[in-house]
């Protein structure tokens, strides 16, 4: 099998191998902080930064990291970037820092990030690792915004804080509460799987 092209490396994580909707990784923040679109974007950007920075360093220093301590070293690198994000958000966007709360620190244990280091960045060139991290990170942001949009529109009647339906709208409070995360993810997975199966069935019928 030939190596994927650079654009394939970049774009596969965005949708075809989306970390949340396809691989079901990083579900903790995807369920927890997506009660508004802004929180989703902030968490997505923070994760993108940590993933890109970690992949860059792991790929650069992969020859110097002994196999026996590789996971410890990856976690150390990831934790460093998470602390940088934590301090930066606390300094320049204190409102978002408070809204995301303990979940910023929990980026350290996001299995999507460690997974990309172990499965990809530690084996590939710096350029490829960077493309993979950017694609996966943007895929994560897209998935979080998909969840956040549904939850904010139904749960608060707004999008990015802008009211959509006026005063007569009765918000579905459950959508901004923790069960709303499971409901939104469940319905997205249901819809996406239905769409994928229909496309495959039509392709098969067309081929026959």
């Amino acid at each position: 099998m030939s190596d994927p092209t650079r654009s394939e490396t970049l774009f596969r994580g965005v949708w075809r191998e989306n970390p949340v909707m396809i691989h079901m990784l990083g579900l903790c923040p995807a369920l927890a902080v997506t009660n508004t679109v802004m929180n989703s974007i902030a968490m997505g950007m923070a994760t993108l930064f940590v993933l890109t920075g970690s992949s860059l360093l792991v790929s650069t220093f992969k020859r110097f990291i002994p196999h026996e301590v590789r996971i410890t070293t990856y976690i150390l690198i990831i934790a460093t970037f998470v602390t940088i994000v934590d301090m930066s958000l606390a300094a320049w966007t204190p409102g978002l820092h408070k809204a995301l709360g303990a979940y910023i620190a929990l980026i350290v244990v996001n299995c999507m990030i460690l997974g990309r280091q172990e499965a990809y960045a530690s084996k590939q060139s710096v350029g490829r690792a960077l493309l993979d991290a950017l694609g996966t990170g943007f895929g994560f942001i897209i998935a979080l915004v998909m969840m956040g949009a549904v939850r904010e529109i139904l749960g608060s009647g707004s999008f990015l804080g802008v009211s959509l339906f006026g005063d007569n709208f009765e918000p579905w409070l459950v959508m901004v509460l923790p069960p709303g995360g499971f409901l939104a993810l469940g319905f997205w997975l249901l819809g996406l799987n239905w769409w994928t199966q229909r496309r495959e069935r039509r392709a098969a019928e067309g081929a026959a």
Partner: protein
Amino acid sequence: MSETVATPPEIPTRPEVPAWKLVLTLGIAGALAGLLLVFVDQATREQIAENRRKAVREAVGEVLGGPAKVVSFAVGADALVREAEPNYEVDTVALNRVFAGYADEEGKQLLGFALAYQRTGFQDAIRVIFGYDPRTKKVLGVKVLEHKETPGLGDAIEKEPFLGPIRGQVVDLVPVKPGDGTGTEHEVDTITGATISSQWVVWIINEAVAKAGPRIDAWLAQAEGGR
């Protein structure tokens, strides 16, 4: 019938890495990470401190019900020391500063004092600020400045259903399980699923009053005696 037994494939062995190399790798990685974090800390420290001062300033106003004038006092060894300008730099471990809020610009009609104090919760410190009327010993308002309690459970300590009923209760507060209370003015219902976190908020208020209360009472006696 003869059976051919397939020989298992050889598993490639990795050359053993000496322990000193593992220690060195982790040591260098740790040192570099520490160095990087020192730079980031230097770059963000002042801004984070400014954000904290702003949060305390807003919270003082909130827990004292929007005072027209605020005066800060350094908590001395045995008395409160009035500061010329309100200083919102609080050390919530030492309870180094309290704030008096007045309903009028002249500073004659005292609303109460705001105290910021902390205690270690499940994950990290819970920093609480509350308004307290030293004459009636009533809590005027409570706000959780910072916490890292479990999202979905312990974080209910910062929400109105828990904090609202503390308003108007009399110190010493007594945490009780919801439904177990006898309706006295000292009781505060804890949160089911976050019993310990909510108890800590109550204890923070009790401890802060126990620590700074005598000095506030002394100052109040002196201020009212001087009128």
